């Protein structure tokens, strides 16, 4: 048979310096052309899109270029009677966008423009008998939503309203033979889910339940010859995994197990010198999602031009310090 390693090849002319100003310009301008095709089609995730844009701008020290008042008004218009928050006006509420909204308001230190008690009730109401969380009233279960729930409540200082033991029990029941985590019990390990579950266990003070050596090995094996990281075995590298994998490694105290220099080269190669922004891999189209995770990954790697980022919340450390949230990390 003979498998070829799935990977990309970085061209010699690929960018190798950090073009921070170009990225700030790209994000500042993104969404200003409201008739843009991609922008409109991604309305279903707008709240998360705003969170990605604001967070990366804050990490680059450029938050002031964004329209704070407009965004806050937008968020207010997205809170529904049930307390949950939607991605955009006219869309239905969901835990994903409730978290993004709370993260944005935390960045802006304006959490009280929404009805916080109702948000807390909404989140609490989504916990199931087995401790899991549904994403919304339609019942999809996923460990991503366990993370969204506890991250939201932690930012609001209200972790005590849920059944913690059951919530933890459910997440642990999703631990696999390789030390990783999947969406639901029995689901395959995936870096995105691993980020959510290690983040969850950090927030809930249960990191000692992770097999850090085994999981750390699985995570460091995500690094491919190009230096980039994939999300699970035999997949192509993607700059967003520079976040999901790296943050997970940081949370479990094993970030030194990947080759930092090679990863940095890969991330830098994903920049677009013309337009600014980062793409999933070198030569592809850029978007705010990959721009945030490229910059956040570089921050975790220690780039001093970028503010320190918190590996659990993917928000600037100084924001979390202001809130007084310092979730545990393993050493």
């Amino acid at each position: 048979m003979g498998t070829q390693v799935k990977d990309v090849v970085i061209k010699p002319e690929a960018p190798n310096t950090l073009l921070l100003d170009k990225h700030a310009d790209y994000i500042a301008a993104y969404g200003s052309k409201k008739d843009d095709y991609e922008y409109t089609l991604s309305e279903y995730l707008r709240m998360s899109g705003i969170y990605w844009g604001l967070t990366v701008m804050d990490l680059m020290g450029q938050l002031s270029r964004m329209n704070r008042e407009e965004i806050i008004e937008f968020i207010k218009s997205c809170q529904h009677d049930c307390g949950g928050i939607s991605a955009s006006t006219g869309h239905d509420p969901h835990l994903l966008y409730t978290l993004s909204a709370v993260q944005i308001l935390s960045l802006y230190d304006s959490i009280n423009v929404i009805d916080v008690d109702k948000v807390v009730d909404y989140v609490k109401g989504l916990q199931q008998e087995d401790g899991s969380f549904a994403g919304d009233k339609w019942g999809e279960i996923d460990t991503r939503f366990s993370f969204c729930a506890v991250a939201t409540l932690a930012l609001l200082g209200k972790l005590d309203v849920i059944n913690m033991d059951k919530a933890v029990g459910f997440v642990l029941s999703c631990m696999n033979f390789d030390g990783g985590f999947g969406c639901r019990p029995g689901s395959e390990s995936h870096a995105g889910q691993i980020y959510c579950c290690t983040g969850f266990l950090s927030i809930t003070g249960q990191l000692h339940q992770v097999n850090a050596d085994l999981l750390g090995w699985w995570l460091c094996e995500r690094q491919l010859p190009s230096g980039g990281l994939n999300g699970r075995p035999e997949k192509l590298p993607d700059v967003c995994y520079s976040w999901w994998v790296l943050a997970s490694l940081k949370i479990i105290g094993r970030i030194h197990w990947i080759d930092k220099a090679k990863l940095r080269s890969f991330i830098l190669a994903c920049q677009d010198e013309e337009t600014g922004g980062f793409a999933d891999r070198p030569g592809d189209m850029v978007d705010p999602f990959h721009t945030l995770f490229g910059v956040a990954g570089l921050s975790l790697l220690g780039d001093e031009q970028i503010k320190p980022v918190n590996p659990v919340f993917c928000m600037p450390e100084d924001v979390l310090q202001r809130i007084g949230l310092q979730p545990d990390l393993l050493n």
Partner: protein
Amino acid sequence: MHGRVKVKSTAQQEEEKRKEREKKLKAFVSARDAVLRKRSAGEHDEEALQLTQQLLSSNPDFATLWNYRREVLLQLETSREKDEVQKLYESELHFIEACLKVNPKSYGCWHHRSWVNTRLPQPDWTRELGLCDRCLSLDERNFHCWDYRRVVVKESGVSVEQELQFTDRLIGSNFSNYSSWHYRSTLLPQLHPQPAPDSASNTSPSPTASPQIHSHRVCEEQLLKEYELAHNAFFTDPNDQSAWFYYRWLLGRAEREEMISCVYVSRERERVSVAFSKPVHAQSEGLMLVLDGQPQQVEWRSTHPRLRHSPVWLCDLPPGSVSDISNEHNLTVHWTEKYTHRDCALYTGCAESWCRDSATDQELFRSELSVEKSSVLQAELQSCNQLLELEPQNKWCLLTIILLMRALDPLGHEKETLAHFQTLKEVDPMRSSYYSDLCSKFLIENTILKMEYAEVRVFSLSNKVLEADDNAIESLEGLYHLPKLEEVSLRNNQICKLSDLESLASCTKLTRLDLRGNPVHKTANIDSELSQLLPLVTALSL
């Protein structure tokens, strides 16, 4: 958002593309606005289904539309007979399948399909299984499909054996089969559970128990067959990393029994220290201390400065209760949550007492192997060594040989193990730090085992000195609350910042500290900084 290649095109091509997109956008916006208007007006009719169908086919992640569709379907249900409802939802399944063809990885699509099956008067699980088979034949790594398959299997009562055979077929025919091996790891404990151990633990294996935690709830006979299966896979293709991952799981140690590893009592300090086999939160575990038959009111405190859960806990005994060295005392620590305890006798004339099993008795570093398993692993080691001769650069093989040697005879294979780690760092330099750490871990385990065999007490600090010269120590995390420690020597290490030494401040008898040969000496005002951090240290060498 993923995999969109940036294509260079001419100005004319750009203009054409722009015009086309503008057209598409207009169509999308008008359809979207129409749908949301209808919904606001509370209209739940066929037209709603048509409009959402149009949009969802190419925008399956527009979740609100699936919600609206469900509202419409639920509304239509109320005015239809059972057989019409059946038809309604069957045609819905048809629509979803068309969406899945366009985007087989949409969370919204798959969830909607699951939802439809809960509304169908008569779900057709055979058809659903067939859909999964087809979908997986196109992309064996589609986790959405695998997760859906698990639901179908559960609802329709497909046997575990049948699913195991399914994985056999996939593993045999494909090289990207991590998902199949993973599925196997979840099926085996259900099919071949190990008879429950007769420990006092009251946790029982359940079908949904996590395979990571309950990996050895698979009976040995089946486990040995799995070695063969994985072995065949990586011998066919030594770069099939999935099989090597699976193999490592098979080699993993059995889950350690939850127990109190050690109890230590000190007359002088009137203190009891308790070590557990895993980090616990003492206050939640029903810990009880009994002294000479009398339960004691004590307050447990953790030795870890930050984490709530710690493997070591301390408590102070009532003053005077054990201080008279002419008295003998019997202590018992009860871990009531786990129905286990440990006794410790403090004899006349003894200032202190330990009670623990040895590292070997506790199978701390390796599990006892049955004769069958031992001979199988021996044969595996031989085969892997043969493979290594053919593929000397194969890191999976090297690492697996190390793990096999550890399972069989950690001390006997120490030299070879070190040599293989060296090779690993050369053939897989990106992961050198991982290999270094793993190697250190094994060396420490071996050192402890050697001390056990030589009946030497482990890391005795009775002479109150800790010497750790000539290592690569960067921080003293873990070296806190050592009340007897008087002298620490850390010459020629990698202590760089003052904060690396913070934990020493909690060692109240520490007066001598040697930090020569560490980068920290370059810190500005290091003398005054150190005297602030460690005021009790009077003899400092920099």
